[in-house]
Structures are given as structure tokens and as C-alpha cells.
């Protein structure tokens, strides 16, 4: 199996790896300390039952397809006591997909605001974790960690259902973290 390879310069104007907005980053990290305590409390308070609210903040819908796949008989999310909630009012965790497009920034923050505390934030997919291929674009407000304190990162484009399971269980403290 050989892959067709390229050696290509990117077009000028796109310098690799720009540092994220430092001010936003600091704010997110400050909030993070609190959110880790909150995360521990979620695990204590909710035990086996974990209710999630999903917000699509500009994904390509592959992440949605994989999240939906979690409900199919192969993965059966419910057996783990994890449920997708229609209302953020009843949710313990927020799953965010996509690089956070500008119009979705406000609705995303409102959703977070509408959730009761304690609450977890889970970034699903490369786009939500780092912006993915859209990182640095003027049309996105992300990545998610700029806006909200992220508790769990689930990378992948899209993350496979097993990766998602690993991430959700990690949020509940029921599996080990990846070691590398």
C-alpha cells in the first residue's frame, strides 16, 4: 500500500502554527482550575448517569454522524448511562463540534450559560480541539478552548465512535488517559 505523496509549499500568507490569542487563552486556563473541581463533583454527584447536550458550531457533519452512531446497537451509549439531552437545562456536559464559526459563537455561549453547574465541556473532533484545517481563519472564533474551559479533548477528523466512547468515559473518570 503506497500513498501518493506531495511536497508542497503552502501559499504565502499562511504561516504555520500561530500562537492562540494569549489573553483568551489565559482566561480559559483560569477557568479551567474551577472546572476541574467541577468535573470531580460531576463524577461524584452523577455517578453512572451523565447527560449531554450537543452543539454543532460549524462542523462538516461527520462528527455529528459519528455522535449519532454512538446510539446504534454497536456502541449503545445508553448502556453506559450516558444520554443526549434535548435541553441544556438538564445537561451535565456540553459536547461541541466544529471550529466555532462566528455566528455560532453567541449561541454556543448561551447554551453553556443555560446549563446548570457543575458542567463539563467536551471538545469533539479536531476542529473543536484546535480549529483543525480552519485554524487561524478569520471566519472562525475557535478553537473551543478560547471561549470555554475545556475538560476533555477528543481529537480525530472525525473521531471514531470508540474514540468518542473513550473521551466520554474519560470525562467520567472511568478510563485511563492516552499515554504518549
Amino acid at each position, binding site marked *: 500500500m503506497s500513498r501518493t505523496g506531495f511536497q508542497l509549499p503552502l501559499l504565502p500568507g499562511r504561516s504555520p502554527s500561530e500562537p492562540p490569542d494569549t489573553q483568551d487563552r489565559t482566561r480559559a486556563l483560569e477557568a479551567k482550575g474551577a472546572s476541574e473541581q467541577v468535573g470531580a463533583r460531576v463524577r461524584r454527584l452523577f455517578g453512572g448517569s451523565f447527560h449531554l447536550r450537543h*452543539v454543532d458550531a460549524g462542523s462538516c457533519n461527520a462528527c455529528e454522524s459519528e455522535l449519532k452512531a454512538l446510539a446504534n446497537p454497536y456502541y449503545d451509549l445508553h448502556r453506559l448511562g450516558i444520554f443526549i439531552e434535548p*435541553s441544556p437545562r438538564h445537561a451535565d456536559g456540553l459536547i461541541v463540534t466544529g471550529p466555532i464559526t462566528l455566528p455560532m459563537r453567541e*449561541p454556543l455561549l448561551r*447554551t453553556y450559560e443555560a446549563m446548570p453547574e457543575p458542567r463539563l465541556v467536551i471538545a469533539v473532533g479536531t476542529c473543536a480541539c484546535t480549529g483543525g484545517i480552519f485554524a487561524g481563519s478569520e471566519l472562525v472564533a475557535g478553537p473551543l478552548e478560547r471561549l470555554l474551559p475545556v475538560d476533555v479533548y477528543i481529537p480525530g477528523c472525525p473521531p471514531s465512535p470508540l474514540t468518542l466512547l473513550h473521551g466520554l468515559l474519560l470525562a467520567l473518570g472511568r478510563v485511563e488517559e492516552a499515554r504518549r
Partner: protein
Amino acid sequence: MTGILLPAILGLDVVAIAIALGVRPPLGRRVALGLLAIGGILAATLGGFVLAGSGGPGFVLDTGLPTGALHVSVDPLGALFLILAGLLTAAAAVYADGYLAHTDAGVVRAHVAVFALLVAAIVSVLVAADGVAFLFAWEVLAWSAYLAVILDIDDPRVGRAAFLMLAVSELGTAALLAAFVVLGANGFTFPAMIARGEALDEPVRSLVFWALVLGFGAKAGIMPLQLWLPEAHPAAPSHVSALLSAIIVELGLYGIVRFAFAALPTPEIWWGPALTALGAVTAAVAILWALLQNDIKRVLAYSTIENVGLIVAALGLSETFRAAGLAVLAALALVAALYHVSTHAFGKGVLFLAAGSVDHGTGTRDLDRLGGLTRPMPVTSVAMLLGVLSVAAIAPFAGFLSEWMILETFLQSPAVPLLGSRLVLVAAGAVLALTAATAVLAFARLFATGFVGRPRSRGAHDAVEAPRSMRFGMALLLGPLLAIGVLPALALPLVDRAAAGVVGPSVAMQLIPPLFGNAGPYAALVAIGGATFRGLLPGNGLVIIPAPGLSTIVSPTYLVLFEAGFVVLTALGVRAIRRLGRDRRAPAWGGGMSWRHPAAQYTATAYANPLRLIFAALFRSKALLSVPDPAASGGSGALEYEQQAPPPLERELYAPLLRSVSWFADKFKVLQSGDTNAYVGYILLVVVLIVLLRVL
């Protein structure tokens, strides 16, 4: 004592008319209305004395008319209605002071005078003790009601509505006249009429019964004679509407009990079921239409028809039991009916007065243009809420117990031996249960879309609370409304005394168990209830057992205590929980955006629309929609949407009736040739016919 009260009341009313006409407003208005209010209180007092056991006053006025002297007296049945009419009159009179404050002086004079005349007519109807006096008062009532409605002459539709009311009323009077002529063959005093009624044979007896039902039903709005009611009641000024809906309509029921029931003591077996069926259909149809109305007063008017239907159904049940020889059950049904009359009178009175306040404070009665009134109009909103809870029969408010008693009495229908009657009663009971549920929907809709939420129009946004006198008028009715609901043990013996003697024995002791009596598993509660209030209440306790031998019991008083307990516990629980964690307020969830626009609230139309779709065939309803071209208004044009649901039977019965009447008139025109010879010929023909009838 009671002997002075009656002339005093009528005298006050007459003086009020004179002052209203003679003295300039605002003084004339205020004094006249004050006198009416005092008269009302006196009337209620008189009624109370009579029900409490004092002998009723009695007069005979020899007028020299060929029909004999006019008799006036107050018996327990009339006394019950006197209490209702008196309290409502007092409230409406106080309310009217504020309501009419900004009306043109000339109109106010006429208004107050006609209002006083109306009140006098009501009292006269209730104290009339012979057929002639009764019919006379009845006619004065009809005409004064007509005048009271048309005084608001700005609107041609009002004139049409009032005329319709008068026409139906006159139709009813014609039927009454026919019945009275038959019953009054041996004189028009009530005992004479009763004696005559006992002696009648079939089919005249049935004809008389149904003529009376038709005659009084026209006033009460029994189907198919209900068409005028939802037109005329909303058209009148609100204090008049309150009297129309809460008292005058119920005078029709009073007439049925007084004449059709009392004068014909041995009913045919089919009268009762037929009456019940009529009542059930009336109630069910009316409440469905109530659900579709957007005008608050129309909702209330249709609800009045519904309640009349409910009461008529109970009356029919009473007749059924009486025909079957079940005197106790018959009395129970009648007590239930009269109790519902009382609760409905207070509830509907409050609601109409509150509706008037809304109209006064916002300039509209359209539910789709109201909303958000609880903050600017707190008193009106509370009055409306309590009225709604009562009329929608929510425990423990007044309407609940009366409606529950009616339904409980329906459960006794297996006692009726005839299978056909039983089937009718069972079906009617089911229809009435559905009606009760729909009523909750209709009134939830009324309050939810009209009062809470955000204002949907400028008028609702700038709403102002009603002036003091209007608030006081509403508050005056809330007291008795709450009292008879929460303390039925106080009210039921009075109702029972009014009903006793009409169709059967007194049943108060069956309804309210004697202190420390056998109350089955609830004996302890009954005992505690009785002991707690011993000496404070005239009744025997707080617990009602609706029917003899039945294990179902209810106590609104206990319900109040328990519900209050729940509220307190919940509040304490919430406080305790709040202390546990941090409290954080977040805006309402709107799908990730903030929707604070009043147009995003459910409207009254939308609330009722699913039901309209389900019953589309019955409503014969149409919806017209026009979506504006977005280009015309930048894509933000307002949608035009309108629903049409013609009143029940308008197309099915009245339109063809009118057509056939015109058709017949057209055909009979040839008879009216204007030729003298032709008329002489007609006379001859009639004479020949009479002679032939005599001979045969």
C-alpha cells in the same frame, strides 16, 4: 322585620330611578347607585332571613284587574335567588360607579335609570306570587334588559344583538302565556296553578311542561334558543353583562323549577331524560365554541350557556328520579343544580366585572391582543384568576364542588328502573364529563393568553388598573365566591332549604354527615372537622358525602388546608435546596438565541387550533391565510390569518328557518289582498270551523 324589607327594597329601587333621572351626575349617579347597592344588600338580607326560617313577607295588591289581585311573597326558593341577585346587584352597582365615570352625562342618567329598573324587575320576578304578577315582572325584565343593552348605541351590531335578545324573549313569553292560560284556569295564584297542574291530563300536561321549558329556556339560552346570548351579553356594559349572565339567565332556570317542576308534580317518564339530553348537548356545544372565541366576554357568554346546559341536565336528572319515585335522589339532583346556580352566579359575576376592567384598562377584549396584565392590573388579575378557577371547577374553588355534585348524582342513575332513561343519563354523564374537561382548557386558555406572559399590543402594554370602585365591586363578590366554595357546609343547608318542598324532602343531613356520625374510613377526619369548627359554623361539619350510601366523600375545607400545607412545604423545600447550592439565574432557553418578542408567545387562537382542527366538521370552520409578498415589506410583512367559525346552529337551523319564513310570507301575501270581501270570507270560514269543532 321581613315585612318592612320588601317594600323598602322596591322603594329604594324606585327612588334610585328618580334620582338617576332627576339629579345630575356624578352626584345623581353616585347616590342612585349607592341606593341600588343598599337595596341589593337588603334583598340579600331578606333572602337570608327567609332561608334561616323566618316567615316570608306577603302582600296582596288589589289592582281591580279582571285577572284578580296581585300576590307578592318570598318563599325559600325565591329567597335563595334573592340572596344571589342582591349580592350581585350590590357589587355591580358599586362597580358601575367607576365604570360609568367617564361616560357622557346624558347617557349615564339613562344608564343608571335603566339599570335600576332592571334591578327592580329582577326583584319583582322573584317576589311575584301569582302568574299575572310574575308575567308582568317578566316582561318588564325583558324590556329593561333590552334597554340596558342598547344604551351603548355606538355600534349597530349591539342594536341587532339586543333586538335578537328581545325577539327570543318575546317568543318565550308567548309560550309562557299559553302555558299560564292553561294552568291559570282556576285562578293565577301559585296554589291554584299547582292544583290545576296536578289535574291536567296527557297530552296537555306534556304540552304545558314543554311550553314552560321553551318559555324559560329562551331566557336561559338552552339550545336551540342560545343564538342571541353570545351576541347580547358581550354587547352590554360589563355590570349589566354580569347581571345578565349571572342572574337573568338563571331566572329562566328559576322559572323552570318554580312552574314546570312545582306545578307539574307527577312528571312523565320521558321528560327528565329529554331535558338532560338537551342540557348535555347545550353544554358540550357551548364549551367547544367558548374555546374558539377570542373576545373575553364571548368566552364568558358561551361558558354561561355551558353552565346553563349543565344545570338543565341536572334538573332533567331530578325529574327523571322524581318520575321513578326516587324522591331523595331527585332532591339531591335539585340541590346540586341550585348549588351550581349559586356558584356560577358568583363566579360569572366576578368574571364579567373583571372582563369589564380589562376592557376599561386596555381598550380591548381580544385575547390575542392582551397578555402581561398581572403586573399592571393585579386586583383584576386576581379576581379573574379566582373566577376562572371557580368556573373551570378547579378544587377547592366554588364551581368544583357543585360540578362534582352534579357528576356524582349522575353516577346514581343506575337507580332508575327504565333502561332507556339509564342509557340517556349515562351518555349525558359522559358528555358532561368531557364538557368539564374542555371548560378547564377554555379557561386555562383565557387566563394564560390574556393575563400572563408579555403584552401583545400597545393597549395591553399601557394597561392601567381599574379605579377603586370597580376593584371594590369585584372584591365584593370574591368573598361569597370563596366562602361557598371553601365552606360548603355553610352554604349547602341554605340551598337545601330552597330546594326542599319543590320536588322532595330535605337532604341536608344526607349531604353533611352529623357530627360523629358514621363516615366510614374517614370517620376520624369527619370528627376532627366537626370538632374544630363546632360552634363556629351552622352546619355539622366540613365533609360532604354527595349521595346516601356512597363512600365517596369530599371536603373542600380540608382540601384548602392540605393545599395550603403543600404550598408551604414546597416553599420551605425550595428554600432548603437553595441553601444547599449556589443560585444562578440564566435567561430562558431559546435555542441558543434570545427570544423576548411577544409574538413568540402562544396566542389564544393557536391554543385552541388543534381542537378546532379535530372538530372541524362540527365547527364548519374556515381559516383564511394570506402571506404578504415579502418584497413589499422587505421580507418582514405581517401575516394575515383569520378564522371563521359561525355560531352553532346559525347555518344549520336559523338560516333555513329565516328563508322558509320569508318564503311562507311571500306565499301568504296573496291572502292579504286588501279586499274587504275577502276578509269577511276569512272570518266566516273561521266561524264555521269553530262551530264544526264544537259540534264534533
